[in-house]
């Protein structure tokens, strides 16, 4: 048993060797997908486009489809095939009610977490606060 514990911990520790930025993107991808689906149903390629357009989340496409599949298995999404004029059917994803709840929980956690972290990080940032706020506002407008 003692050995099992030690090995397990060694294994988990080795994850931190990965690039931190990649980890952050991976960790936020699930929330980003739920958020993108908040307004209504979308199919895979639309989800990918929105993620690429509205955030810095340029993710390998090969990871998004399996993730969609998992979110569906977990009951957070449902999917349906819709015939399109384009000649091939598309698989649309939609949030379930438990998906909506989960998305709200994650969003609340995320914003509380990042607000706390921002306070800690303020001394590390070269720009003064008003500038940073203006830049964030600008970015938000650009997205619209």
């Amino acid at each position: 048993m003692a050995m099992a514990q030690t090995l397990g911990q060694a294994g988990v520790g080795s994850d931190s060797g990965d690039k931190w930025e990649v980890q952050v993107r991976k960790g936020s991808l699930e929330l980003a997908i739920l958020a993108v689906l908040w307004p209504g149903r979308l199919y895979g390629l639309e989800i990918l486009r929105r993620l690429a357009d509205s955030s810095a989340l340029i993710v390998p496409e090969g990871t998004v489809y399996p993730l969609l599949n998992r979110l569906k298995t977990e009951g957070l999404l449902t999917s349906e095939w819709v015939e399109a004029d384009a000649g091939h059917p598309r698989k649309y994803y939609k949030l379930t009610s438990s998906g909506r709840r989960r998305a709200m929980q994650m969003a609340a956690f995320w914003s509380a977490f990042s607000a706390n972290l921002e306070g800690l990080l303020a001394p590390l940032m070269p720009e003064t606060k008003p500038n940073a706020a203006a830049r964030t506002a600008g970015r938000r407008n650009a997205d619209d």
Partner: protein
Amino acid sequence: MTETQRTETRGTDVDLARAKIKKYLQDLAAALGSLPKEQSNDIVEELRSHIVEKSAANFNVNDDMNGTMTPASVDAVLAGLGAPESLARLYVADDLQIRALKSRSPVLIIRTLFRWASLSFAGFSALVASIIGYSLSLSLIICGLLRPIHPRTAGLFRIPDGANDYSVSLRLGFTGLPPGSHDLLGLWIIPIGVMAGLGLFLLTSLFALWSIRRLRRATPALSRRDEGDAEVSR
């Protein structure tokens, strides 16, 4: 694409593009073999839809497709998805994890960890630890149960090992013991072996399920990819 390729008829190009798609999806379907047929068909069709739509030239999300796919555009889309085998691995490992977490069957747990073992060092460590845990727990239980059948040779023994050295060994009693061996637990091996074995079995399951959850959280969608893919995500 070279100049000669461009002068070829459009029909040939489209055929070649179609053949590439077909090959990719066949490989994917083969690699998804362990999933239920219905689920693997669904995945293949979804990716077919993605590849066809995205590889059509002049793709615009608001229009329907108004372009034609070329072998080069198909290649680009397929590269974005990664090799069919690694894509399938993500689906299969994800699927196993969820089933293992739901069922808690040791067989499914070990199978899940086998998948993880090929993807990350953490998964490999968890697999090794779980195998050790399960086999030790089964050995303890079996040893306790075999004691009445092999009253002299099954149990926990201190066995002389060289001149002044001893080792402690759990024996199932199928082979004889070296001279000078000392039975440590006597008949107590029956209750202790069975209880400790069951306890260790439970602890191993808890540890393995904890590892699986932990691995899932560390890498959503199992995104441990090859270096080429990691570049894309940067």
